[in-house]
């Protein structure tokens, strides 16, 4: 039995047109007003020269019909000239319009990225990185059509249609009206049939991305599949996913391939109508042939502007969906922002004060309840306690990833909310449990802590945290390329690199979420040594798992149910009979030594 595939894309592919947002988008084109204006002029010229061609053709045929020669060189020369003028205009139109569109798009993307950088953690908590990535890359890309061609084309196409009707009417209004009988049919095909076509192709795309998602996951987890002998079931699933693609594809392609024959037939019906009724005119005047051909040729030019109009309509719908998603992000204000009168934080000593801090992530469940403490500069605080007790929240508030719901957090007496965020974080280092390694060299990864550090300083920092030795053992030393995935670094090595990164920043306040993962004993020893170096002379908050770290702390906070249940150093706490800390230590010891 085939497994149900979880759908990956639950986002609307299209949205009804939204004028306000469209206008907002157009503002990005404003700096390029001149280029757009020029392009418009060029397009009009190119269009006119294109439209004149059938006219000249028909005149030439008329001349040939009566075997007149004197005007022919002019007519032919005119055709060549028009062709060249048209091509030159098109050339510059493409250049100007594309450069305006691409630059506007780049600006939009920059703005979006800038906005995302300014968002606080609560924003990233509720949105997956994958979706944000799609906003920045795909959604912006999908606006390209609209920017570079869409808008200008629409103007030109409307003009073309009007002009066509005027010229044809001027030549022979009766025949024109007859020929235009096909227009309703043409419009139906272009707008209605195309719409269905588009919806079906969208379905194919959705099915395809489902397949891609399944395949990607399946390949990533292939080792598990082989270990658990799930190959046959997976084969079934994959077959059915592919059959889905095939059948949706066939549905789309069937209507797709009916489109052109339908268009062709419509055009030919028009031609035949013009012939049949045109013959009556020819009976009266044989020289009418030229006009007849002219009308037939012009009739053949109707579908193209109509076609682009219908394309535009379709792309407008999907662009609106992208647009709304982009602006939704740009309209989300970060809940952590510098105040208007925010001050830069002067160089600090590292005193940390919590005053009656209460906090809730969702305003329903309180995570921290009325927590107060005051830490003197240079002290190391170990936070211990069960998962979910509020340890991480304390450090999140201290690094101002969130603002307290009530009460205040102060550094050297300054309320964090009155400070410029950047100036404050620069004097602080935060290390989360899962160390992130950027793709680049090891040197660059350490230097991320302070961009203007020299190579010597980087190496010095690595030496202090005992990372130098293993780095030098790598094929290219500090220049070894590493990255997040498929990285050749072990868990312990990654931690050492992040220690070096933090040390380079030389913060007055250090926040560390110690990793639980067990590391081979050799690296473990290195990390303990590195920690000692790192914690020296700084106010440090460590969410600790290692007994040694806890023991060496100046003060231990036992966090329980959003409160600090016990406070004191190891010697003090261990003596509290029935205390949380004491029982924690006992339990740890029991697991270490328990026999059988």
């Amino acid at each position, binding site marked *: 039995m085939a497994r149900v595939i979880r759908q990956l894309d639950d986002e609307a592919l299209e949205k009804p047109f939204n004028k306000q947002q469209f206008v907002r988008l157009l503002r990005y084109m404003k700096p390029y007003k001149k280029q757009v204006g020029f392009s418009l002029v060029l397009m009009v010229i190119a269009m006119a020269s294109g439209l004149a061609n059938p006219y000249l053709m028909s005149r030439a045929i008329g001349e040939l019909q009566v075997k007149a020669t004197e005007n022919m060189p002019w007519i032919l020369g005119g*055709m060549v000239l028009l062709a060249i003028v048209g091509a030159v205009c098109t050339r510059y139109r493409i250049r100007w319009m*594309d450069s305006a569109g691409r630059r506007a798009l780049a600006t939009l993307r920059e703005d979006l990225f800038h906005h995302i950088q300014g968002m606080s953690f609560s924003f990233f908590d509720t949105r997956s990185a994958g979706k944000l990535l799609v906003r920045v890359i795909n959604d912006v890309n999908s606006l390209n059509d609209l920017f570079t061609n869409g808008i200008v084309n629409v103007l030109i196409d409307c003009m073309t249609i009007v002009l066509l009707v005027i010229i044809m009417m001027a030549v022979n209004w009766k025949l024109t009206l007859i020929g235009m009988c096909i227009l309703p049919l043409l419009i139906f095909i272009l707008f209605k049939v195309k719409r269905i076509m588009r919806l079906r192709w969208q379905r194919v795309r959705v099915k395809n991305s489902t397949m891609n998602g399944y395949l990607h996951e399946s390949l990533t987890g292939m080792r598990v599949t082989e270990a658990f002998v799930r190959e046959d079931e997976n084969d079934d699933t994959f077959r059915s996913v592919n059959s889905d693609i095939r059948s949706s594809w066939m549905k789309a392609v069937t209507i797709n391939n009916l489109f052109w024959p339908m268009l062709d037939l419509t055009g030919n019906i028009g031609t035949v109508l013009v012939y049949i009724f045109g013959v009556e005119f020819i009976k009266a005047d044989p020289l009418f042939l030229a006009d007849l051909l002219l009308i037939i040729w012009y009739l053949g030019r109707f579908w193209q502007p109509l076609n682009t109009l219908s394309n535009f309509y379709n792309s407008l719908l999907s662009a609106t969906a992208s647009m709304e998603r982009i602006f939704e992000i740009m309209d989300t204000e970060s809940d952590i922002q510098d105040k208007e009168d925010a001050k830069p934080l002067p160089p600090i000593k590292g005193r940390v004060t919590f005053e009656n801090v209460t906090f809730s992530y969702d305003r329903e469940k309180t995570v921290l309840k009325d927590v107060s403490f005051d830490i003197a500069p240079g002290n190391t605080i170990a936070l211990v306690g069960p998962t979910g007790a509020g340890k991480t929240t304390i450090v999140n508030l201290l690094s101002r990833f969130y603002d307290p719901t009530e009460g205040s957090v102060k550094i050297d007496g300054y309320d964090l909310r009155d400070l410029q965020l950047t100036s404050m974080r620069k004097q602080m280092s935060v290390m989360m449990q899962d160390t992130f390694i950027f793709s680049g060299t090891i040197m660059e990864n350490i230097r*991320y802590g302070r961009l203007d550090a020299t190579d010597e300083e980087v190496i010095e920092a690595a030496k202090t945290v005992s990372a130098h030795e293993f780095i030098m053992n790598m094929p290219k030393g500090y220049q070894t390329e590493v990255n997040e995935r498929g990285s050749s670094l072990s868990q312990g090595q990654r931690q050492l690199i992040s220690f070096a990164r933090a040390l380079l920043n030389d913060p007055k306040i250090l926040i560390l979420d110690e990793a639980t993962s*067990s590391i081979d004993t050799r690296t473990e020893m290195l990390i303990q040594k590195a920690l000692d170096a790192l914690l020296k002379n700084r106010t440090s908050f460590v969410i600790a798992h290692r007994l040694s770290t806890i023991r060496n702390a100046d003060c231990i906070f036992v966090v329980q149910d959003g409160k600090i249940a016990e406070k004191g150093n190891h010697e003090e706490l261990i003596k509290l009979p029935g205390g949380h800390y004491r029982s924690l230590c006992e339990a740890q010891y029991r697991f270490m030594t328990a026999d059988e």
Partner: protein
Amino acid sequence: MDTIKRIWGLVKPYKKHLIGGLILQTIVIVAMLVKPYITKFIVDDVITKGLYDKLIPFCIMLLGLTVLTGGCNFLRSVLYERMSQSAMWDLRTGLYAHLQEMPYEFFDKHRVGEIMSLMTGDIDGVRHLIAFGIIHVYEQALRFVGAFIFMMTMSWQITLLVLALTPLIAVMAWVFNKKVRPLFREVREQNATLNTITQENLAGMHVVKAYAQEPYEEERFNKENQKLADMHLKVSWLWSSFVPFMDILGSLCTPIALLGGLLLTINGTLDIGTMVGVTGYIWMLVDPMRQLPNIINMVTNAVTSAEKLFYYVDFGASIKEPENAMSPKEFKGHVVFDHVNFSYGHQMVLKDICLEAKPGETVAIMGATGSGKSTLVTLLGRFYDIHSGSLKIDGIDVRQHSIKPLRRQIGYVMQETFLFSDTIADNIRYGDPSGDMERVKRSAKVAQATEFIDHMPQGYDTVVGERGLGLSGGQKQRTAIARAVMIDPAILILDDSTSAVDMETEYQIQQELKEVLKDRTTFIIAHRISSVKNADQIIVLDNGEIAERGNHKTLMEKGGIYYQMVMDQMSSAVKVEKEVQ
């Protein structure tokens, strides 16, 4: 040539579609060639000569031909699409099945992204060739030759005049193609770069924020973003320099034909209808020339893609079901390593390993990163093949075992936990899809996962994995343990699989496992002494060799590597212990 033959092999099952399509296409082209002739007759006979009663039949013919071409074209395209889609289905599902047979070594060497692009981009290239390539070549060639012949019968002078111009178009199209292709590749690569930068920025956001490096990130992003815009513009530039001029060359053919027509009509050798008719053919002569480079491109691309695909197809599964595959009636889990050597590439990973694990025993393996611990246990399920020596499970060499039944008896909890984007329940019963909820829950209980699963929004039906709810490292590991317990294996492998679980929980898991897997063989890789000290055998690996072996007691007495590790880890605990007392 070989590749083309193999592509033909893909099409062969759908020969009927292929031939039917070719016939239909021939009809289409002939009808298209006849059409301008009718226009010529309408102009010459009806209009010029005044045979007005012929008009209606001609018009009917014109419409009839349109319907005929449209219909045949439609049928042809449906046939070809079906053919190409089916061939692609065969290829893709076949390749997928093939990939699932691949040994671990294959996935060590080929990255997922690489295989993905093969399974999507390259397969699509081949599909394109099958759907359009064959018919396109046929169509353009036939159209060109047909238009040429028909025009020659109308007026050979004009035909030759037009023909003289067409090579110029082909050359231009060729040069354009040559220049634009590398640019397109650059754009694709730059897009990928921007993608990576953004993705990393988002994934590493906590580091970015912690060091307040937003300005640096923006600067980096803007640089690449501008570069992308510039590259797009380079393409536009090239495009604008070529395409409009290729178009005029095409449209210049008409005035040139007219010029020829002018000279000929003056001499009286050309009817006006013929002139109109000829203009109807010009495009058929010009278009194939414009398309030529595209076609050549498509074919070469498809062949390159196909070569890659066939490389993977030919990449034989080095680990195959043995010819006289055996399977014990009942697996007991008796494992014997007898002087096993294993090397990876040129590097010896395991040297002369001798080890026996009796049913019900627990073997703990310790050692530094890279000492060969994980490799040793992957040999059990024959995910890699040993090089020399022998590895027997229940008295049968693993290379003689029937592979799938063997693997079904091994509960493997890997170092890197991978969960599928599926419900927790389905993840736990991954190895036993028909297993009932009762057993799923029992397995979860053994792995101490019940509590956190019950706290999830939809309990066991909560979707986890990449596209679902994120689990913490410890939660993932416990789910993976439940998954292994679920298949009720004869041999359980725990490869550093409780590293993210706190000590108390780990202890409970061990107690439960002891109960459930009473007479099963367990291999456990760990760093914490607490995880291994109760094992029946402890072996310490160093550089692929067994440096020490024994149990906790004997190794402690020996005072070697193991003793040192214990001392390092216990030192702080012992101090605490003293204080507690």
